[in-house]
């Protein structure tokens, strides 16, 4: 399965990214939450506060990667075509003029990220927006993540080296528009349902 996104994302990247990076966020999140439960039990407020950064970083890492895997699909599959996302496409055209103009705007935003972070298409109320989150900050508040693109260097470096513009160009070949359409039509709870089950 991990070779399924070739040639746009290499097998080696996918394997490390999933079995090492994502696994580390999960392990560290579980550790932090376990310590947090103990701190709550013993009414140790200072420790609870001290754990917040680790919970946010590793929890965000777990959420972001879970959403990312789901919004990718092998190039050439039915889901890789925006045709399977009629409602979302119509809203994208309404907002940006055309799908190409949206892709351009999204790509420019991704390439403008300074350091590690993510770019997201989100729905906020009735409005679509492109946002970025730094490091592993997740999309929070009322925003519903439609799809995300990981701009940490570990997401592309082994294959694209410093050429991140090529990674951004190729990622469009493996975006799962079916997932995107479902998230667009659903609620924030729907988006996170699978994640809750996994935890």
């Amino acid at each position, binding site marked *: 399965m991990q070779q399924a996104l070739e040639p746009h994302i290499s097998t080696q990247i996918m394997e*490390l990214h999933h079995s*090492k*990076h994502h696994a*580390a966020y999960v392990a560290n999140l579980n550790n932090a939450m376990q310590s947090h439960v103990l701190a709550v039990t013993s009414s140790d407020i200072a420790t609870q506060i001290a754990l917040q*950064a680790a919970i946010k*970083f590793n929890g965000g890492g777990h959420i972001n990667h879970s959403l990312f895997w789901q919004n990718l699909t092998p190039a050439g599959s039915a889901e890789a075509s925006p045709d399977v996302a009629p409602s979302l496409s119509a809203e994208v055209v309404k907002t940006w003029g055309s799908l190409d103009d949206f892709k351009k705007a999204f790509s420019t935003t991704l390439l403008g990220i*300074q*350091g*590690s*972070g993510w770019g997201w298409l989100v729905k906020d109320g009735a409005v679509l927006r492109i946002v970025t989150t*730094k*490091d*592993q900050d997740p999309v929070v508040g009322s925003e519903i993540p439609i799809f995300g693109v990981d701009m*940490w*260097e*570990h997401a592309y*470096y*082994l294959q694209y*080296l*410093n050429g991140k513009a090529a990674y951004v160009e190729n990622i469009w070949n493996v975006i799962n528009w079916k997932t995107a359409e479902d998230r667009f039509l659903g609620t924030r709870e729907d988006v996170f349902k699978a994640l809750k089950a996994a935890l």
Partner: protein
Amino acid sequence: MSSTLLRTVPALRGALRASRATKPAAALASTSFVRGKATLPDLSYDYGALEPHISGKIMELHHKKHHQTYVTGLNSALETIAEAESKGDFTKAASVAPLLNFHGGGHLNHTLFWENLAPASREGGGEPSGVLKTAINDDFGSFDGFRKQMNTALAGIQGSGWAWLVKDKQSGTLGLVTRANQDPVSGPYTPLLGIDAWEHAYYLQYENRKAEYFEAIWNVINWKTVASRFEKS
């Protein structure tokens, strides 16, 4: 006798050091500029010279591509500011601040980084000596204690960034700070030793095993450079 004093009276020690500590920009003096433009500095060693601790391929990409991008980005930000200034468009000039900080910081940080590295077969590795050694022992307990604290700081960086051994300009004491992304060390601190914790600094060789990179890099630290920054600041 003075060294006994330095070890036993921390406040006085700080004051003594502070009295010899007032050329804040000295550590940054070598950042290259030609006719008002930033330029990519040459390295004083070959790309492969830090092997096996940092691969030649990493060094080449890191210097020739990544650092070059910061140099180009810095010059472009400076041009935009100059142009906006000449038109009195201060809103435009101010909007470039994040790019100036990112690319300017990237240029400064990498310039300092190349200089505080050296091949293990030359000045690289080992332990500091002289007044720097004394200061590290005073402020971190021991050289090993310092290394451990620096590695913990590096491992704790969430995202891209740097860890630095710094000298506090006020007290003259040493400390450790981390900086996100390419934020440079400024304000009350003089940077003495920087370690790049961006993934591009190690990923081709160490992949996700960054702790191994943080261990290996001590073999190529140029303590002569660090000592000279310490003494000049």
